[in-house]
């Protein structure tokens, strides 16, 4: 009997050994590990708000958000427009034709960049005839010598003999006479010095372009292209506000035209996030800004003018409190704005007038539950290994040297954009202070950060919420920034926050 029982016991026991290799493992553990660390600087955060933002630091390290418009430029083509070719017959040895300055201008002289006169004529003499063509109003700018062209009409055995040539006038100074005329005369002589008259003398003026013009350049408008500066900063705005203490619009002008120029502001509007269009009001802009210009002794130089629309000379502060998304502007330039004909100006073929407008937002501001969102696409499916996770608890530790407190909300969404769940089950306006991710650093009287604010928060993610997390293919991250009421702070480039995230997970199988 004992032996039988012993055999039974042995068989059962051996079966257990076999079952051991096929048995499921059941355990229940709680694991903790660090997850990730990051050091986020101001520039990183702002750079993520939109791709159009340029972050710069001034000499004090204060962060500036810069939004630039297109660089616009006008050159001298209109002023020094080329004269179309025209024929001019010489019916006599001396011909006068009037020179007309471009509309509104009273040019004293031009330096020709390119110009040539083609001519043809005939001689009825039975010998060679020497020809000299002279334009008294055309002189060598260096020697002062009058332009003369020499040629010989060769007698080819049968009269009349044909003569032709090209007069290259490039580089010569053209100064109409006191009557405003230009004269052309020729002298044709035989070998013995006897002057003769040529017949069928035709000229064709071509490629008449100037490289320099001096005189009164007229009172005219130089049209510059309109532009719109996009400010994406508020593109993802949801609610709350941020007030910049000292926003500015900078207008940078470069001018190498040798004449006084004044701005004409056709449009300077701010488009806000709610769709309204508000004009920027500035008496100085309305009156026109006089831009610097080079004098007659500064030919080739470029003069710069910098003008700023700020809180002292415009309504810009209140405009940027409306959460602007664009600055729409149209500026033109008016030459000789006072129409003073006594002003002698100049223009060269390389003269230009350029305007560069940019919005500068020094981050010296106060935020009031400023809330923005960004979409996150989840590229990879969450591994099925996480099915053994019972719960997660995230521990977020921040050491913040940025003078603003912040909270986050994460919405889990499917590929249709349907909301599955959220990280916190509270409305956005209740995220602070209970779900604060980072505390604001203390500031001094100027608004600069002077301390490190430490904050810890634990976020429980129970199994039900974790299921939604596993199912999501998209997510919306909402960031809420806030300052104490009345606190205006400055963001400096060195301001940063250390973020450390750990996780505790319950895993069972």
């Amino acid at each position: 009997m004992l032996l039988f029982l012993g055999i039974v016991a042995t068989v059962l026991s051996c079966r257990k050994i076999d079952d051991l290799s096929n048995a499921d493992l059941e355990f229940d553990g709680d694991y903790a590990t660090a997850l990730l660390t990051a050091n986020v600087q101001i520039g990183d955060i702002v750079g993520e708000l939109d791709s159009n933002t340029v972050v710069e630091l001034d000499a004090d390290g204060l962060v500036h958000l810069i939004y630039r418009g297109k660089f616009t430029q006008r050159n001298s083509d209109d002023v020094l427009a080329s004269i179309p070719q025209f024929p001019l017959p010489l019916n006599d040895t001396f011909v006068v034709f009037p020179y007309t300055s471009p509309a509104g201008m009273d040019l004293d002289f031009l330096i020709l960049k390119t110009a040539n006169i083609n001519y043809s004529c005939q001689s009825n003499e039975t010998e060679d005839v020497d020809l000299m063509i002279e334009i008294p109003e055309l002189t060598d700018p260096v020697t002062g010598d009058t332009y003369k062209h020499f040629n010989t009409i060769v007698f080819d055995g049968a009269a009349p003999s044909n003569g032709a040539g090209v007069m290259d006038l490039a580089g010569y100074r053209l100064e109409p006479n006191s009557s405003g005329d230009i004269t052309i005369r020729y002298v044709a002589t035989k070998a013995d010095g006897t002057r003769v008259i040529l017949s069928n003398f035709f000229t064709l003026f071509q490629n008449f372009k100037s490289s320099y013009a001096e005189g009164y350049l007229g009172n005219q408008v130089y049209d510059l292209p309109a532009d719109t500066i996009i400010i994406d900063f508020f593109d993802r705005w949801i609610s709350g506000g941020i007030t910049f203490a000292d926003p500015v619009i900078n207008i940078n002008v470069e001018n190498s035209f040798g004449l006084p120029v004044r701005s004409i502001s056709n449009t300077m509007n701010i488009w806000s996030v709610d769709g309204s269009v508000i004009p920027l009001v500035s008496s100085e802009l309305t009156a026109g800004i006089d831009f610097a210009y080079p004098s007659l002794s500064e030919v080739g130089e470029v003069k710069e003018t910098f003008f700023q629309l700020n809180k002292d000379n415009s309504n810009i502060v209140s405009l940027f409190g409306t959460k602007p998304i664009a600055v729409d502007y149209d500026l033109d330039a008016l030459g000789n704005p006072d129409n003073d004909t006594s002003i002698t100006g100049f223009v060269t073929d390389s003269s230009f007038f350029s305007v560069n407008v940019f919005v500068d937002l020094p981050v010296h501001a106060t935020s009031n539950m400023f809330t923005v969102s960004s979409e996150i696409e989840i590229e990879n499916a969450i591994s099925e290994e996480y099915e053994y996770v019972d719960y997660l608890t995230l521990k977020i530790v921040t050491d913040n040297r940025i003078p603003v407190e912040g909270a986050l909300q994460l919405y889990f969404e499917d590929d249709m954009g349907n909301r599955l769940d959220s990280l916190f089950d509270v409305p956005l306006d209740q995220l602070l202070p209970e779900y604060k991710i980072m505390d604001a650093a203390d500031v001094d009287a100027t608004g600069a950060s002077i301390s490190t604010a430490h904050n810890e928060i634990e976020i429980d993610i129970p199994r039900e919420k974790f299921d939604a997390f596993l199912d999501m293919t998209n997510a919306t991250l909402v960031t809420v920034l806030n300052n104490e009421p009345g606190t205006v702070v400055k963001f400096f480039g060195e301001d940063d926050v250390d973020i450390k995230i750990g996780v505790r997970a319950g895993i069972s199988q």
Partner: protein
Amino acid sequence: MMAIRTEAQELGLHFMDNVIQSGYTNPGKMSKYRINVSLPSFYGGFTHTGPTIDDILFYRADGSPYIDVDAGLLELQDDNFLRTQLNIETFNVTLRFGKLQAGLSHAIKNDFVLAYPRNLAEMAFNGNEQFIDQTVNVAPGLNFTVYSEFGLHAAYQLTDRLSIGGRLKLLSGVGNISTNLDREKLDIYTDPEYYQLTATTDYQINAGTGLVEIDYYNDGDSTSFNIDPFGGSLSAGDFFSGNGGIGIDIGAEYQLNDKITLGASIIDLGNIRWGKSAVNLTSNGSYTFEGIDANDAFFGEDSIEFNEALDTLATIFGFEETNKKYSTGLPTKFYLSGRYNVTKTFNVGLVGYGEIIRRKLRPAIALSAQKDFGRIFSIGGVYAIQNGRFDNLGVNFGLKLGPIQLYGVSDNVISVFNPSDTKNVNFRMGLNIAIAKKKDKSVE
């Protein structure tokens, strides 16, 4: 009551005076036969201080089996180990000439010890959250040795009461992989700030000869670590390798009177020096995992790859490989026994036993009873308290038919019928040729 955790070995054999193999537990014993020739025999043993299969294996209502890890963890001590032994005795020849007894023996021995702290299992299955802000040692220990042993033994009857003996063993290491007991540190600290993990190591793994294959690769980005105790090649020459050692057994037996005999012995005092193809992998330093640096993921083009964190954890342990010689000690054992002859054919005994495993003395105590049935058959039993268990009942027997002697001994015969509830089992069996039994002279 003091708890006794023992890993008893060869307790029943100690009282089998009719069998020459009892001299393995005390070389001072004089054989009852003038000529003893042992044919190849084997010994196998298993010990686990942790849970048995019955402690961890359960069945659901639908009959499917599952392992309850928490139940197993309850059965763990602070320090645990699992041990297997397999010895093949190739031959043993012992001759007795009057008061002198001498002999030659050879065996191939295999001893495997895997030690692990409870903290290792707790951390693996229950997690490290319970150990936040604590430094926990989780270093496992390992000693796997295969060696060849040539023994030259002698015993001498000094007086009518006292006999002494010893065995000099020439050892040749075939293969070894072991952790350095002086460098067995792997501390894990979980920081309460945000659960950064700091591992502090001073850990060395040694391996000798080509039997053991150890494959370690770490280029700073990825790592692989494979140990195959039998992955290498084995040739006859490995049994006579350059990994030499010396072992010594000494013992004495004193007959107090006709009834009482006392015995004392020390077995396996010695070590093996591993120099041929020695490999040392050493990790020494402190490594902290503070989480993945997410800066590039948040503000660059990279993404967060959590699998990289696992690779980081693996590579930070940075084992350095060297080829220095090292030594491993033999598991030294102690026997202190007394036997009382109730009658000429029946005796009872008491033995205190100790074995040094991983520098710790692990004691055992056992009671025995031996009965001879003439010259042909003897049987004995041993009751031992070992490994926290009180149900260790051993049995031994010897059957002599002419010069052929068959013997078998186990210190826990119950485990044969109930292996799933066994923490300790051993078994030895063999054949001897025993000739010319010496007449028993009682001390007057």
